[in-house]
């Protein structure tokens, strides 16, 4: 296609596809343990890293990886303590992260445009070096999530059982936290810190409308992520829209279509087949 005769468009597409595949592979574990919005929080923290990088004239992405990883470790420690005050600690971290980022970017010589690039993504400015970073880290995330799937599934499904199974629960939890931080920072270039959580979570939400098992949900979510990322870049290139927003809106559109179709299909089946007698549970109380 002639749209992709330009190198920067090709790089944008490849970067988006890698992220589209890797983000849901990690996101499914976050959804499973009901931490769907954690990516958003870590994105906020990563922004402080971007600001610090711009201010210190260091690579913003590299400093963001460090900041996001530290933030993810703090969040994981708060989560594993399981205290109710934890959500206040998380709120402090999230809003401290984004406010720190905005302030540091303001103090540096960078323009508002570069803040926007990190907030909402700027795929078309992906350099060859950026693409290498995205590809290497993306493949590493993908391989880790696939190879460790049984163990990560066990930990996210029933953490106490995993502990009694002798699994290295703390190490696996840390791995998920650190992987989330890395995913957020590489995807920052594509969809931006404010939208990255969508690419981790929305394909999983779409897939589980129609799937029955964990493995099939993971495979379907990865396929949907790939489609949304590829399609989003295509839409952005043809209609000249923001790539990050296009990718996310496409993912949400497919969620709506699949959710409506699944609901319609269920209603149709209910209509056709007569209701089986509901399984009787034993009475909880004896009424005299």
């Amino acid at each position, binding site marked *: 296609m002639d749209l992709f005769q330009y190198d920067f468009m090709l790089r944008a597409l490849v970067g988006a596809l890698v992220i589209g595949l890797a983000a849901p592979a990690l996101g*499914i574990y976050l*959804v*499973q*343990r*009901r*931490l769907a919005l954690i990516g958003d929080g870590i994105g906020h923290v990563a922004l402080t890293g971007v600001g610090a990088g711009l201010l210190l004239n260091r690579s913003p992405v590299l400093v963001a990886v460090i900041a996001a990883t530290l933030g993810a470790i703090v969040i994981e420690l*708060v*989560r594993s*303590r*399981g*205290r*109710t005050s*934890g*959500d206040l600690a998380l709120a402090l971290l999230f809003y401290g992260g984004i406010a720190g980022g905005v302030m540091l970017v303001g103090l540096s010589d960078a323009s508002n445009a570069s803040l926007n690039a990190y907030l909402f993504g700027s795929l078309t400015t992906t350099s060859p070096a950026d693409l290498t970073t995205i590809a290497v880290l993306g493949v590493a995330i993908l391989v880790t999530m696939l*190879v*460790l799937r*049984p*163990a990560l*599934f*066990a930990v*996210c*499904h*029933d*953490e*106490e*059982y*995993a*502990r*009694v*199974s*002798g*699994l*290295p629960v703390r190490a*696996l939890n840390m791995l998920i936290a650190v992987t989330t931080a890395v995913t957020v920072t590489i995807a920052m270039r594509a969809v931006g810190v404010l939208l990255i959580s969508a690419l981790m979570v929305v394909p*999983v*939400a779409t897939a*589980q409308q129609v*799937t*029955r*098992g*964990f*493995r099939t*949900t993971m495979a379907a979510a990865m396929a949907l992520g790939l489609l949304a990322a590829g399609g989003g870049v295509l839409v952005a290139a043809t209609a000249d829209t923001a790539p990050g927003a296009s990718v996310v809106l496409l993912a949400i559109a497919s969620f709506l279509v699949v959710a409506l179709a699944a609901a319609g299909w269920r209603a149709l089946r209910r209509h056709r087949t007569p209701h089986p007698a509901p*399984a*009787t*549970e*034993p*009475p*909880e*109380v*004896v009424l005299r």
Partner: protein
Amino acid sequence: MNAPVIEIAHAAVGYDGRPVLRDVSLTVTAGEVVAVLGANGSGKSTLIRAVLGLVPLTAGSVTLFGSPQRRFRQWRRIGYVPQRLGAGSGVPATVGEVVASGRLARRGVLRPPGRADREAVAAALRAVGLADRAGDPVATLSGGQQQRTLIARALAGEPELLVLDEPTAGVDAASQEAFAGALRGFVAGSGTVLLVAHELGPLRPLISRAVVVHQGGIAHDGPVPEPAGHHAEPDHDHVHPHCDEEPAGLWSM
């Protein structure tokens, strides 16, 4: 005398400074089927959670298969059946996938499942009568069938000791019978069982010894006590809320 499997010596547990168990000592030897009985809030669930290291001891010690619990690493010898599957996540999982995670203690984190693993999962599903439901999402099962799934998960690891937390609470009669059958098979294979129960129901003939926990201490250790008063009426049905013993954190599972 058989080898001791669980040795609890002068154990004490407290949540936030509030004592739940005090000076509890109990030894379970290989081949025994021990039921821990007691009222809600007596500390019976805490007792088995302390055995498994899920709650820390404030005093005393727990020894598993001859090793101090802190240094115990042979978790494949233990199968744990929690009271119920957590609130359940949004992501669907099939019965087969949940039961397969029972093989991890034996297989390790990195090794992919092999034929022995698949056979053990199939055998465990047959033992609890759910072989035909392996591909169904767990969330579509009844409470009793979900409980049987958790028992199959523990059996799939081919453990020597089964630790069960109220396995029959709120479970329909068919599932209670299926469960008793699975446990009978496990005991016949010279397995050891420690289970917490509110009522024994069809498990009663299997129990070799009963321990009654009352106000954080052991009030009785010996044969299964006869039900008293209105508890002994055949149509008596217990009504009790399931309350968490720990405050559940917002981010906990």
